[in-house]
């Protein structure tokens, strides 16, 4: 669903931004971005989320003193100076079930409470954020990389290569995107040996599996705009001039076309990451993303589903983290686009 955020028809302009005259377009863009206060705030928010997520081990080891990957159903914690069990036996005559402790709002002791396995939810959310961000960023980079290479090949050699590649992309495009991801993930997770292609061997519990799957399914979404930009740049005078001067294909690609294409990719990147993070969350929620004992925001929401009515924070908190992260990336994406291509302000946005 969120893939529509990248719908290229209405998304990034197909013809790509022109190169701003002068030596330092990136410096200019950075200045413009810094002047955009909302975008800059989003950037800071995103950086804070990234830093705290990657600081998860520090939080777990030195602040909460807990290992959020090991069951601790017989453990205790301190609430208001008193030692209490993490799992509370049910009451009444039947004494049915155990309920994990709720939020203590004390960052040293189960800040957001415990999950059904006695693990610190706050620490898990930080660790989960690390997985979510790694997968989100990793798959966005993979998708962009593959798409850019394919687009360069297609745009440059054009003709039959271009036609074939574009048709191939159309076919992948015709797959409902989540469905494709779920299909591949289901099969790869079912295979007891994980993904085995030649020398590459990715086991099911590895973060690489969802990263590769998500990266793969979003290739067409980056491919279309990038190919458009390659084609438009290839027709520009400075490229024609370079060809007239006898420049080699390789030099052309690397020195003339690639820098322009990179602008498009950079504009797309925050939106891509936002989309891949949402996709990862959905896959993990359905149980075909990050595998135990690993955690991501999606798996924590899924864990929290069973605690929704008694300990709603387990499901709500990771959701809020997703919303904040994706929101920051979307705002940042707008800001970067405006900064890199000021005239796009009045264009149709997506």
């Amino acid at each position, binding site marked *: 669903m969120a893939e529509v955020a990248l719908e290229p028809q209405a998304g990034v302009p197909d013809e790509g931004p022109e190169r701003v005259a002068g030596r330092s377009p990136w410096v200019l863009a950075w200045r413009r971005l810094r002047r955009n206060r909302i975008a800059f705030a989003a950037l800071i928010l995103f950086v804070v989320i990234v830093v705290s997520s990657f600081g998860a081990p520090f939080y777990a080891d030195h602040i909460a003193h807990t290992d959020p990957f090991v069951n601790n159903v017989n453990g205790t914690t301190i609430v208001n100076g008193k030692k209490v069990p993490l799992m509370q036996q049910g009451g009444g*005559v039947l004494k049915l079930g155990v309920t994990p402790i709720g939020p203590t709002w004390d960052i040293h002791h189960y800040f957001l409470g415990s999950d059904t396995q006695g693990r610190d939810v706050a620490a898990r959310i930080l660790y989960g954020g690390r997985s979510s961000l790694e997968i989100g960023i990793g798959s966005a980079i993979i998708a962009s990389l593959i798409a850019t290479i394919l687009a360069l090949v297609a745009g440059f050699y054009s003709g039959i290569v271009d036609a074939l590649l574009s048709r191939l992309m159309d076919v992948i495009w015709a797959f409902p995107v989540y469905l494709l991801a779920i299909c591949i993930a289901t099969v790869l997770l079912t295979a007891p040996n994980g993904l085995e292609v030649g020398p590459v061997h990715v086991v099911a519990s590895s973060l690489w599996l969802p990263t590769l799957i998500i990266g793969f399914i979003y290739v067409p979404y980056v491919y279309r705009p990038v190919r458009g930009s390659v084609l438009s740049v290839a027709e520009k005078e400075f490229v024609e001039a370079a060809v007239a001067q006898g420049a080699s294909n390789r030099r052309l690609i690397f020195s003339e076309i690639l820098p322009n294409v990179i602008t498009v990719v950079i504009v797309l990147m925050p939106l891509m990451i936002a989309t891949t993070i949402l996709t990862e969350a959905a896959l993990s929620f359905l149980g075909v993303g990050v595998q135990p004992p690993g955690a991501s925001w999606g798996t924590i929401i899924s864990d929290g*589903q069973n605690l929704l009515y008694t300990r709603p924070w387990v499901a709500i908190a990771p959701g809020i983290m997703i919303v904040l992260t994706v929101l920051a990336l979307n705002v940042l994406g707008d800001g970067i686009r405006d900064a890199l291509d000021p005239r796009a302000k009045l264009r149709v946005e997506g």
Partner: protein
Amino acid sequence: MRELLRRVFKLSIPIVAIAVAAGCGGSGSSSSGGTGGGSTPAAGTPQKGGTLTILASSSFGVADPAQNYTLQQWAFLIDTHDGLVAFKRVGGTEGTQLVPDLAEQIPQPTDGGKTYTFQIRKGIKFSDGTTMKPSDFVTTFERQFTVPGPTSFYSGIVGADKCTPKNCDLSQGVVADDNAYTLTIHLTAPDPEFLDKLALPFAFVVPSTTSPKLTGNNVPPGTGPYMWQSYDPNKEAVLVRNPNFKVWNPDAQPEGYPDKIVEKYGLQVSDEVTAVENGQADVVFAGDTIPSDRLNELGTQYADQTHVNALTADWYFALNTKRPPFNNLQARQAINYAFDRKAAVQLAGGSSLAVPSCQILPPNFPGYTQYCPYTANPAANGAGPWTAPDITKAKQLVQQSGTAGASVVVNTDGPDKPFGEQMVADLNKIGYKAKLVVLAGSIQYPFLQNSKNLDKWSVGWSAWYQDYPAPSDFLNVLLGCGSIHPNSDASPNIAEFCDKGIQAKMDKALTTGVTNPDAANQLWAEVDHEVTDQAPWVNMYNPKQIDFLSKRVQGYQWSPQWYILYDQLWLQQ
């Protein structure tokens, strides 16, 4: 039978060569806890009418009674169909007694136990209006072999060995006389459990006009008080009253109370609980595991709508005895000492829902005497309960076994991964390098059973529910040498444990049991303890069953054979 109760996604093939409830000596399997128990005194007078709505997270697959092997459909088939004999339709241990159903009485076998002659009741009609006659049974039994299903139950009938899925002729083995209204069944060898097998839904009579092929989701007409109006595995099953039904033996087939019984599919279990709390539905299907965080509210706010019954079942980890490190006895014993059964009990919903166990046989079972050597401070001769793990002892054993540092793969299915994570942590604690592999529910059990996969796992999660209260159903079926079938997905001895001495004792107990059940049970108790000493499993606990009903439902009865009896529930209007 493994997991008849659990989600259909997880259903897999239990091999039960001989089967069935009751009558195999020993007491019934049900004990009650909480407000549950065999039956509760109903408030007010039972009244007919209304629609009973059951919620289940998923359906029971194909609906042909010749193929379906789930307690989920059986709970309905006993209300819509009848066999020659039946388990008494009441709650409590009485529910394992056999009573005559479509037969006038239970016959004594003749011909050295090889021939059974039944006098069939007259004047009973199928729900489609046709009259039930003895020859309908011939078709019913032939369908066992033409419809791909668990054929082994009736393979002792004369002529069955020549049956194929294409063609089956049992006219020599099942002889019907529609004039005298008798049915004679000839077996190739005496089978002391044959009558029990006849009380299973596989042997419930269908009209002779029924196709020899699978009927898919159309259930053939039956003779019970209800009939199938529709079954859509993605939506619902609907049972309505059979207009042609008249009571002939209330012990076997009493009249039901609700006018309509509906089972709806596809909600998350937590939402099922909410719906029943809010009175939008009446029963949470027994096979759906209620999330542990919802249990407290059931035990406090809804205690009088909640029923708990102990199950004769094991939730355990099988240890791969064919590969290192667990081909080493000391290594197997080490993890038995180290595994934190209290944590497993907590994960299962707390001490009121699970009882820790070290041995194979469950409590209240013939041959059961408490035995737990794998605990801190064990009682004399191990005859006490499990209290706490003994990590020191476990580490010592690991050192002695020389397996320290070995890589270990723990295999579970999705819903049970918390147990797997506990196992991984405890293995790591005593010096192994453990990691978890989670497989989809539908393939995990066949995967573990197939010997081709022995090099891919070391510790495998599994669970087993009794077929009938006889120790062989646990010890011989799950840990006997004869239950290992190489390269087959149906090889229930997952651990591939085979000890010649213990097997000889089991064989002796089996033969003794025919004449002297008490002596046999004593032998089984010894076998149970000896197997436990060999540690082919890490048994975790024996579970309990929760039934949650809406406020308006009365007349709860729990049969150890069929569990909750839907047709005997009645609705306060």
